[in-house]
């Protein structure tokens, strides 16, 4: 029980630190940040100085008269109320705009993560079992390449070669706009068709990491005495690999789950921009190019919260699955 509380506190603490970082990034800009922002908005959007100043103050709630700690508290309160500021481009509340894109991104990322995970651990276990053989060596090379390739570069390559050069797949959007959204086969197949390339970009650059991690973990487990004992008892090797090796080797991989998710969220900015996929990544990408600070901050906060929450869930699952933690505490 206490262990869950500890994890929960860590998650909350992490989010708190992130909020603090974003706060200080704005407030502690060297040079006169407000002046620069005013100048920027004046020159880029052709506002008068008065208008620009109004806007900047309004966007950030920069009550420069208040002492810093008061600004900090006001900032926390407004955030927690869900009003994360207003995007300059759309004049929409930041949170609302972000939440439009969130489901699409989660859809894409979760399916990609699942596929790359399954493929990865499958290859990983095979590599462990056939260690040193032809398959292991060949797969080592392939998985290393997968791990080394940056996901956005593969995304760009896929976009060019399969959507523009040989237009097999569509290059824009998450679904065909002419089709009405709904649970129709038409819509669903359009969604899948449009998400194929982005998914490939994620999957092909992630499975390698899982495979290599699984291989290492499985090799370690295979060396353990209880595996030898199981074989000596005459259990079928498929049973051994599923129940004994599989479960024990999988467990350590949970800890890297959240890190990987963070990596994918980071890549989503590129991939969704390239494929004009209507997810959070695209929104943040647009915000970056327009220097729409409230939106950028809000996006960062949302992504981090998503990662922290999934990390927490992964930890919980790990705790449930690992009987050593479930039973709690040291051995008597």
């Amino acid at each position, binding site marked *: 029980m206490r262990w869950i509380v500890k994890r929960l506190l*860590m*998650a909350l*603490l*992490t989010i708190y*630190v*992130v909020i603090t*970082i*974003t706060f200080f*990034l*704005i407030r502690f*800009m*060297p*040079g006169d*940040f407000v002046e*620069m*922002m005013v100048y*920027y908005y004046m020159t880029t959007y052709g506002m008068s100085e008065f208008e620009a100043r109004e806007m900047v103050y309004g966007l950030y709630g920069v009550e420069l008269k208040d002492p810093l700690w008061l600004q900090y508290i006001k900032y926390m309160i407004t955030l927690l109320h869900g009003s994360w500021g207003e995007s300059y481009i759309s004049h929409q509340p930041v949170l609302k705009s972000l939440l439009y894109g969130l489901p699409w991104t989660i859809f894409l990322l979760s399916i990609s993560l699942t596929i790359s995970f399954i493929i990865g651990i499958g290859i990983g276990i095979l590599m462990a079992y056939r260690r040193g053989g032809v398959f292991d060596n060949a797969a*080592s*090379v392939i998985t*290393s*390449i997968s*791990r*080394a*390739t*940056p996901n*956005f*570069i593969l995304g*760009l*390559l896929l*976009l*060019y*070669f399969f959507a*523009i*050069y040989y237009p097999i797949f569509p290059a824009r959007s998450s679904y065909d706009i002419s089709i009405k959204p709904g649970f129709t086969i038409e819509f669903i197949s359009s969604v899948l068709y449009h998400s194929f390339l982005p998914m490939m970009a994620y999957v092909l650059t992630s499975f390698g990491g899982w495979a290599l991690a699984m291989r290492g973990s499985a090799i370690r487990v295979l060396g353990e005495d209880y595996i030898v004992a199981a074989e000596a008892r005459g259990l079928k090797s498929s049973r051994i690999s599923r129940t004994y090796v599989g479960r024990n080797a999988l467990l350590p991989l949970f800890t890297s789950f*959240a*890190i990987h*998710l*963070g*990596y994918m*969220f*980071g*890549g989503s*900015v*590129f991939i969704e*921009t*390239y494929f004009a996929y209507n997810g959070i990544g695209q929104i*943040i*990408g647009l915000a*970056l*190019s327009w*220097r729409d*600070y409230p939106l*950028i901050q809000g*996006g*960062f906060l949302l*992504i*981090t919260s998503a*990662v*922290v929450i999934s*990390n927490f869930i992964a930890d919980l699952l790990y705790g449930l699955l690992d009987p050593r933690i479930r039973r709690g505490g040291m051995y008597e």
Partner: protein
Amino acid sequence: MNENKIMRIFKRILYDYIYIPLKILSKDKRALFGLIVLIIYILMSIIGPIFVPLSLEPNMEERYQPPSWKHPLGTDFAGRDIFAQIVNGGRDILIAAFLAGFVTIGLGTIIGLIAGYIGGKVDIIVTTLIDIFLTIPGFPLLMIIATWLLQSGITVNILMIAFLLSITSWAGLARSVRSQVLSIKQEPFIEVDKCLGLSKFHIIFKEILPNAMPYIAINFMLSSVSAVYSYTGLMALGLIPYTPGNWGAMIHMAQAYVGTITGAGCWYILAPSLVIIILQVSLVFLSNGIDKIFNPRLREW
């Protein structure tokens, strides 16, 4: 010091630090491949620009030319030679990557050693910090800091970029160094060392640190991989000022013009992509083989 001594020291350095590692690496074909490719990249970045100077003049008649003797990799959207850009563009990336790698392992090692050896309250604070930094997604954090940097008007030099890139990667090494320190602290040979009166400095740096070296070396390579990803990524988003010809800049431009690429112009995308991928792959291969150099137990003799 007389000449004999200098010769002896020189020979020892040559033997211990160059010959033996090479001998160890040569048994692992992939690591050797990685090393050779890396050396080629480094040479290319140092002497390449002398032979293949960069010219950034737009030459719209020669847009998207296919590879030829004049332009070994073709031309880009403004008719400029791609090969020259590739040769010249690597320098910044390699420097940033390795500098970031050094900063990461420096930070990670010191923090890990402190947390592990001192223990107590310091350890609790540091571990919490490590956990937080491990959870925060690195690249988004970098994006936000980079936009902040860009807007703040600070001139950004390569050292700053290296520090920036290592903000997100020090935590992993710190954690593994710390756990190494914790597990070694209890070993009998450390107790004997204490009885023999060896100083704390000796114990930390000459006894504990060598045990952590394999992790540190591998982490150096992997941090460099991560730094290349982050650096090219930030440039591809236009968040960091770049020199044209830089591979990340090429990706940024390629993406912007992707709809207009005709025919053999695909080289504008392919060239920087492949060159980055190969660099990363060679670093990964090298990291796999580097274990044996730092861990005498794994050697075959």
